[in-house]
Structure formats: C-alpha cells, structure tokens
C-alpha cells in the first residue's frame, strides 16, 4: 500500500477542555494516531512517548473506544530545566468505532512509546435461509 510521506511534527497538540477539567494538575495531549482497517480488523497506532505499559487504560464501551496514557513527569535529580520545547503530559483520546468489534480479542502492545491496538471485527454470522415450497 502506498502511503504519503507526511513529515514528523515536533509540537504536541494540547487538550484544552474535554468534558470538564482533570483532577490532576497536569497537561493532557492528543496522541497523533493512525487508524487503518482491513477485512479482519481495525488497527490503531498512537504516539504516547514516555508512557509505561502499566499506565495505559483502554476502554471499549459500546462503540466508543477511549485510550488514556499517564506519564510520570521527568525530573532528573540534580539538574535544572534550562531550556524547554516540550512539556510532559498525559495522552487522551476517544474514537467512535463504526464496525462491530470483538471486545474480548482486542490486542494492545506498547512499543517504543507507540500504542498499537488490533481490534478484530466480529463476523456477522452467515445463515442461509432455505425457502420451503408452500
């Protein structure tokens, strides 16, 4: 599949307000996400640098998928921040999934700061209805 060569962007998009403010005094960002679909599944890849695997929450409620990655702010001991181009913060995003997903078979992997989800589609059961001659 050919893909367009989109360059990488240096700045993160901050979540300004989404259904009220967070209780944690921390910035939240929108993870840059790729979503593609095949016959069998929907694939999602979201950039969440700094998030550890045990700090990710993934929820599928009906057709609403929410992903949330919490980041422990980096504060190297004995150092002072002298110059800053980015801020640490959590990553949050919601997606409405149009296909029927088999919620029990969702796979999630976090690798190199990228959350990779595979959402297998449920196959509609095929039933052949025979027509009786009346």
């Amino acid at each position, binding site marked *: 599949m050919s893909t367009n060569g989109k360059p990488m962007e240096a700045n993160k998009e901050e979540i300004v307000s989404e259904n009220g403010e967070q209780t944690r005094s921390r910035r939240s960002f929108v993870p840059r996400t790729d979503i593609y679909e095949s016959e069998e599944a929907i694939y999602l890849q979201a*950039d969440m640098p700094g998030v550890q695997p045990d700090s990710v929450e993934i929820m599928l409620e009906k057709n609403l998928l929410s992903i949330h990655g919490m980041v422990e702010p980096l504060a190297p001991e004995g150092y002072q921040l002298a110059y800053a181009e980015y801020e640490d913060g959590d990553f949050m995003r919601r997606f409405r999934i149009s296909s029927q997903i088999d919620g029990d078979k969702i796979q999630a992997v976090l690798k190199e*700061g990228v959350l990779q989800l595979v959402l297998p589609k449920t196959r509609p059961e095929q039933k052949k209805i025979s027509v009786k001659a009346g």
Partner: protein
Amino acid sequence: MYRTIYTPSVLSEMERLQREMNRLFEGVVPRRLLSAPSYPAMNVWSNQEGALITAEVPGVQPEHIDISVVGETLTLTGERLAPEVGEDARYHRQERGYGKFSRSIELPFRVDADQVQATFNQGVLQIRLPRAEEDKPRKISVQVANA
C-alpha cells in the same frame, strides 16, 4: 500636557526593565515553551557537571538513532520507518509522520565526547553530556604568602 507625555514614558521604562529582568531569569527557569525549530522537540537540563537533553521520538527504533558530538555541538539524526500495512488496508486517519530527521544544537560548553551516554525508554531519548574537564569552572584557592 507635560504629565500626559511623561506618564507613558515611565510606564514603558518600567516595562522595559521588566523585560530585562525576565531575560535575566530566563537562563534559570524557562518562562514559556519555545517552539522547536525542527523535529524532535528537545528539553535541556543543566548543572555544573554538564547537561541532560531529552527528546520525544516515539516509534523510532533505538538502532535508527545516531548521536554525534563534536566540540560544543550535538547532532541527532534518525529515521522513523513507514508503518507496514497489509495490501487490503485502508486508512481512516494518518496523523503520524515518518521519515528522516536531523537536528543540531549548540551547547554553552565543550562536551567530553567519550563520556556521552544515551538511553531510550518508551520513545523518550535521554542524552547525558558531561562537560569536558578542561572546560569546567575551577575554584582557585588563594594561597597565603609566607612572609
């Protein structure tokens, strides 16, 4: 008339002073985020011994990151590979970029290139840049001259 001209000039003088003061403190605590001139965005932490640079480079494999230090200049180059997707896949959203990147930054001191250390954890790169020994500030003790 005199007053109306005089007052704003005092204000602007105070504003100027404020700006100068802010600039003085900028070296210690960043007042605001500066926008990164190119990918990736970097944060610089410093102390007497050197600097620690962090950068968010999600999806870049550590073996595709190259760090080089010459004198005071750090150059970070790398590549994020295009995702491998199946033939029948069709994109709903494509927001993550990929490709090569290269960025150089100049530090306010000479780096001891042999002692540079880099770690990579879940898309966050940390580079420790110790200051070269001959570049460190020296404490000069005053000797008492014996009469």
